[in-house]
């Protein structure tokens, strides 16, 4: 988290995945890049789209929609890859469209009810934002709901699945 922000504020980058708007902490984001067909890997779950070259590092590209148990994203002109860093490991997430970067207050985050995203625990909370792009797209005046993705949990849950 950047030290220029107040301690209870954080920047999140919001993006759309199907009908939903998600957000991840800016601190985890390395870069946003255009969709580029990754090199497919053998013997991996189908949500791993393959690997791509991020400045000389081999980074896996994950279909986030499939990873969350939804139908795979369709690739279109605005499809992009969010490259994130969690626990020193890098991964690219295929998302439908990047929306905005917004500042939120921790106090505005509401705990996530049991939303139907396959793995509820990967949602760290819900927050309402007044994101310009999405607002325009959805015609909503009093902000839209963003699902905050918990990247640590996303990494962890999978391990538990495997142990089971």
């Amino acid at each position: 988290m950047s030290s220029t922000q107040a301690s209870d504020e954080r920047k999140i980058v919001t993006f759309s995945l199907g009908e939903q708007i998600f957000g991840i902490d800016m601190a985890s984001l390395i870069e946003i890049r255009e969709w580029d067909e990754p090199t497919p890997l053998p013997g991996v779950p189908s949500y791993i789209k393959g690997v791509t070259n991020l400045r000389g590092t081999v980074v896996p590209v994950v279909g986030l929609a499939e990873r969350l148990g939804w139908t795979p994203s369709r690739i279109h002109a605005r499809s992009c890859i969010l490259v994130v860093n969690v626990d020193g490991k890098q991964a690219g997430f295929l998302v439908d469209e990047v929306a905005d970067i917004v500042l939120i207050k921790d106090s505005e985050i509401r705990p996530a009810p049991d939303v139907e995203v396959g793995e509820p625990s990967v949602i760290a909370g819900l927050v309402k934002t007044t994101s310009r792009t999405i607002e325009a797209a959805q015609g909503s005046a009093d902000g839209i709901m963003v699902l905050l993705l918990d990247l640590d949990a996303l990494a962890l849950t999978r391990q538990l699945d495997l142990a089971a």
Partner: protein
Amino acid sequence: MSDDLDDIQAIFFEECAEGLATAEAGLSAMADGDVSAGTIAGVFRAVHSIKGGAGAFGHAALTAFSHRFENVLDEVRAGRIEPTPGVTRVMLTAFDVLADHVAAAQGTSPLPNDAAVAAALDQVLADRGVAEAAPVAPAPVAPASEPVAVEPDPFGFEPVTAIVEPFDPFGFEPVTVTLDLLDDAGPVVADEPLPWTVTFVPSDAALANGGEPMLIVRELEMLGGTITGVDLSRLPSLRDLEPEHAYLGWTISVPGTVDESAIGECFDFVAPESIVDIVRDVAGDAAPAMPSPAPAAVEIAPVVAMTVPTLIATPLAAPAPAAAAATTPVAAPASVSATAPVAAPVIAMPVAAPAARPARPDEAEAQRTHEVAAQTIRVDLTKLDMLLNLVGELVIRGSILADRLSPKDQERVELPQLSRLTREIQDTVMSLRAQPIKQAFSRVPRMLRDLSAETGKQVILETTGETTEVDKGVIEKIGDPLTHMIRNAVDHGIESAEKRLAAGKPVQGTIKLSAEQKGARIFVRVADDGGGIDRARVRAKAVEKGIVAADAVLTDEEIDQLICAPGFSTAETISNISGRGVGMDVVRSNVEALGGRVEIASVPGKGTTFTMVLPLTLAILEGMIVRLAGQRFVLPLANVIETVQPEPGQVRPTTTTGEVIELRGNYLPVRRLTRTFGFADNDAQTPEESLVIIVESETAGHVGLMVDTIDDRREVVIKSLDQNLHPIRGLGGATILGDGSIALILDIEALVGPSAPLTRYPQKGLAA
């Protein structure tokens, strides 16, 4: 501040590790009969550096022990102790204890009990005392018995008052003189030898050259020295004070019981141009600078003034100045004759400035080589990785740029030059990370000595492939697994002497430690010639521990693998060595964490071989770029035997999925990798449309792989997949091709070897 100190400490411990490795290599060489001066000096220097650093950081126990050890080494170096096998053995033991001391200073292990070894070292020194009575090298000293009758002589004789004057750099072999003089002095020199007066005036540039004078003064204090005077004469006014200059000089009194060479060693790393005088006090007279006209007794009290023998530790140093002295015998003869009557009590060994000069270029050269050998810098590995990645990008961008240029422009000389330079940078960066696996192997001999002592089993170690270059990260991580494998081999593999004799084997067991690179993998093997794995016992134990069901049907290989199961141990008694049920389990998990695997091959009665198959992360691989279902892959050239363009009917189906190729009368199995990988099915493709590459694998022999085409053959940089993902069976990593896209590197062993599920590694991380 304390962080800085910690950092410096960390560097010290790294240096200790290097020093220990050097010392061990040298001692092992000595044990094998190499007692050359270079080897001994190398060990001495290593121990001496450890002592110096330990003193600076206040590790008293380590300092004390390394000092003791160093004393013996010094005597060996000077030829006064014969490096007999017995002495070498004591030194090897001392080395082990020294390593323990370092670990203790680091806080990773308790303080070792060094009493026995210290006593053994002292004994070695004491034995030397007997031999010492016979003059070792009396030749240059002969004139010393008649100091007054000095003709121009290889050595310059000087009034003792000259001692404190700055001499030019000069090194010599002072010790033999002292000893002989002492012997001659017999009845006069009392039981309690007279104290030494050491004058030390560091050169102006001492601090700039890293020759921190305080460390040297402290080292002398460690020998029992006390500062008796400080020379402030060179100290300028505060305004003119240059913080990086050394202005002070010290007079330090060191007890006479301290060996002169021990004092000399404190100055081993002193900055050039410094003044160092070591003078034995004249009886009862604390001021040797003003000796009264001498009684006979004093006449032979040795004064040894020497100037900065920076190179005293290197064997090169002694001959050079000696020769210089011999060829330039003009050293201050005038002062000799003039002052001889007064200076009679004193023999000033080293030579004045003119004599020393001719030696300087040599010395400077020797010093330069010395420095070159020691010039290293420590770099964070992640920085090297970053650099390597960036260079890789540079290569790719360069080739993209080249593609955009017109053919005419591409041929211009600048572009080829640029790509050659880029490739050179790449090669250089790559070589920075590769280290000989020797570094990991070097700790094994000591371990075996310990294990032999503990178990009473005699073991011979045979090492091959030590020069195999492996990525540093891998070397660091195979240390623990290797330790466990060796322990396991001695504890469980090698039988007791009686059993070995009964089986008709030599009493001494043999452990073969080897490393080799094959394609994208490094194979590290520990092979013992012991009894092999007792499969019935392993199985029984596994059932008892609930690791497998009592009625499980297991192949021999599966039983062997049980050794690596968590919590498995067949040791009847918990020994200090193994038997805690963690050993081989740790090996497997560490190796798998590296993206490798452990293979076990055991023949009852003949022995067991454990093989760590490790990835060569960041190594270069010579490979063939092939296409499978349109996608590019890298096939390691090391595996490739030949390429075949099949004729119709040359490839024939055997079963529904199996195919064979007929090659010069032999039938070899053919694999369609697209099928193995589950890629878009190209079963429809006829063999005639494909190429068959015959590859060799360790486990499956020759196998044909069907590929679409061969694109290219080139060197590729291996990138590990597990950095951000996890190892994938069948792949040795990935590489980035010239156009920036990724090609996967095939792991032939895993692909054509005994069939195993493609993903059997634990999956972790975001993309797992």
